[in-house]
């Protein structure tokens, strides 16, 4: 059997290859830089590469390995970082003219943790402006494109992270998720996107969009890599007011356990009646339920609050909190925003304080409803996106399909949620599903996802981009 090209190695595989001395950090980074050189003009996954610093770090990692000094499980692994996350010395532009010259003075906590685990920061990846706009052509940088078909969008807002991981430009990347922004690109690009439990991963040094909805999470090509990244990222941070005092570690400890004793609640009404999905997406979800049942899980239908109301609660909270952040710039420099983000941020000016509190009160009830359901099942299975990715230049179709998703409920509730590939459409675009678990039982979500991954071959499919 031919060994995979270095750019298709997962982080776990690359770490094993480093240990076996069949690959070095410099060789891996050199291969990735060559691939970026070839594909960046098409995909626009990166806003800024830090190739020189990354190569210096790779040489250091190589010397340390030769001296049998391993910093951590990500030793010598290059990562991409969504450009709303601070990396000391690099601009954090949020893909916006507003912050074009904003140089970060310190690493975000997640970057410090990844460096401590041995990771190498390769560059900053494209995002929707301030993690809220959409695929836009009126910003300082072009939008990222989907490796499965560059005429289509890659999802967002962590769009460059999704496109870069799916195209083999980087094995893993960081994104943020306020209404689904890690899981959307994972769904559109056919990879794995994990939104951990609210409070498990620090947001210190990450430009905020909505304080009570923001999460930071990894985008990877395998479930094992998502667990590896979460091991490095999780942990209490006193500098983040929402950080939980969790001691959870070794999130991959249950990856091999299978689903034989798991009770899986299938939230069919999300994609059948709340927002009827594209028929190919519906078929992929039914097939996933069948696969999990065949693997030994008990799959039963469950009911949660209506998806459109979840979206409404998410939107009122998000726009209200975002307005409190962006109001000074929207007042003074409205023309420096792209039109999409301006239109998505301005509604916060028109939402009365009472409606914001009302949404937070309804949120408490919705959390109780999901908790009640999770008393009877271990994991939820549901849709992530209702449609495959639309053409990036078809603004009307993108505006129609972007909100047709089932990710916002778990920003509202804070439960851990993972999106992954569940098929390919007739047009060759990824289909997706979502697993959701109890608070701080991210390991169980990863366990269900790993069982599905083992039982199918979607994770080894590669986009036809070279």
């Amino acid at each position, binding site marked *: 059997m031919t060994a995979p090209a270095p750019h298709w190695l997962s982080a776990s595989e690359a770490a094993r290859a480093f240990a076996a001395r069949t690959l070095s950090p410099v060789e891996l980074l050199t291969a990735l830089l060559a691939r970026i050189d070839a594909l960046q003009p098409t995909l626009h996954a990166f806003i800024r590469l830090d190739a020189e610093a990354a190569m210096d770090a790779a040489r250091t990692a190589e010397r340390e390995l030769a001296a049998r000094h391993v910093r951590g499980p990500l030793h010598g692994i290059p990562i991409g970082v969504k450009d709303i996350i601070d990396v000391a010395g690099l601009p954090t532009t949020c893909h916006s003219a507003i912050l074009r010259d904003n140089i970060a003075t310190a690493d975000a906590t997640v970057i410090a943790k990844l460096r401590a685990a041995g990771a190498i920061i390769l560059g900053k990846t494209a995002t929707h402006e301030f993690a809220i706009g959409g695929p836009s052509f009126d910003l300082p940088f072009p939008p990222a494109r989907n490796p499965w078909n560059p005429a289509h969008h890659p999802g967002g807002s962590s769009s460059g992270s999704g496109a870069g991981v799916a195209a083999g430009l980087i094995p893993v990347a960081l994104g943020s998720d306020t209404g689904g922004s890690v899981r959307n690109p994972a769904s559109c690009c056919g990879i794995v996107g994990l939104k951990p439990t609210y409070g498990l991963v620090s947001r210190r040094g990450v430009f905020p969009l909505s304080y009570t909805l923001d999460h930071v999470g990894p985008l990877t090509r395998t479930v094992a890599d998502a667990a590896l990244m979460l091991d490095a990222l999780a942990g209490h941070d006193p500098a983040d007011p929402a950080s939980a005092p969790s001691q959870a570690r070794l999130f991959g400890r249950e990856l091999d356990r299978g689903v034989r004793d798991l009770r899986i609640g299938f939230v069919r009404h999300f994609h059948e009646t709340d927002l009827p999905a594209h028929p190919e997406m519906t078929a992929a979800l039914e097939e996933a339920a069948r696969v999990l049942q065949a693997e030994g899980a008990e799959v039963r239908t469950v009911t949660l609050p209506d998806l459109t109301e979840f*979206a409404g609660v998410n939107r009122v909270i998000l726009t209200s909190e975002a307005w409190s952040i962006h109001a000074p710039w929207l007042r003074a420099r*409205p023309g420096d925003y792209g039109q999409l983000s301006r*239109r998505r*941020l*301005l509604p916060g*000016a028109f939402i009365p304080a009472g409606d914001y509190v009302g*949404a937070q009160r309804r*949120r*408490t*009830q919705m959390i109780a409803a999901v908790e009640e359901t999770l008393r009877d099942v271990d994991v939820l299975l549901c849709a992530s996106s209702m449609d495959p990715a639309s053409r990036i230049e078809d603004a009307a179709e993108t505006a129609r399909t972007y909100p047709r998703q089932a990710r916002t409920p778990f920003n509202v509730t804070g439960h851990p949620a993972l999106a992954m590939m569940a098929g390919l459409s007739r047009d060759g675009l990824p289909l997706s599903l979502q697993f959701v678990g109890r608070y701080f039982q991210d390991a169980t979500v990863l366990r269900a996802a790993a069982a599905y991954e083992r039982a199918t071959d979607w994770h080894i499919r590669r986009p036809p981009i070279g």
Partner: protein
Amino acid sequence: MIPSDLQKTGAMTPDPIAADLLAADLIAALARAAGLDKALAAFPEDVAAAAAQALATTGAIRVPVDPAAEPWPPMRPGIGL
């Protein structure tokens, strides 16, 4: 000022143009109160679309009627309280 159709018939019937004008005036007043004079001048359609979106979004939520239903996150004392 009494709308013209009310003067004639004594009954209020919807006047789409007047309603739009009223809404536009109201939106402009709210936008100015929020300090969005520049946005209103340069991007009036974006401001109007944002106001419409805010109205549609808040209308989609069933706010609890029970006064005891508290908001998330729970209020809790922190350091210094």
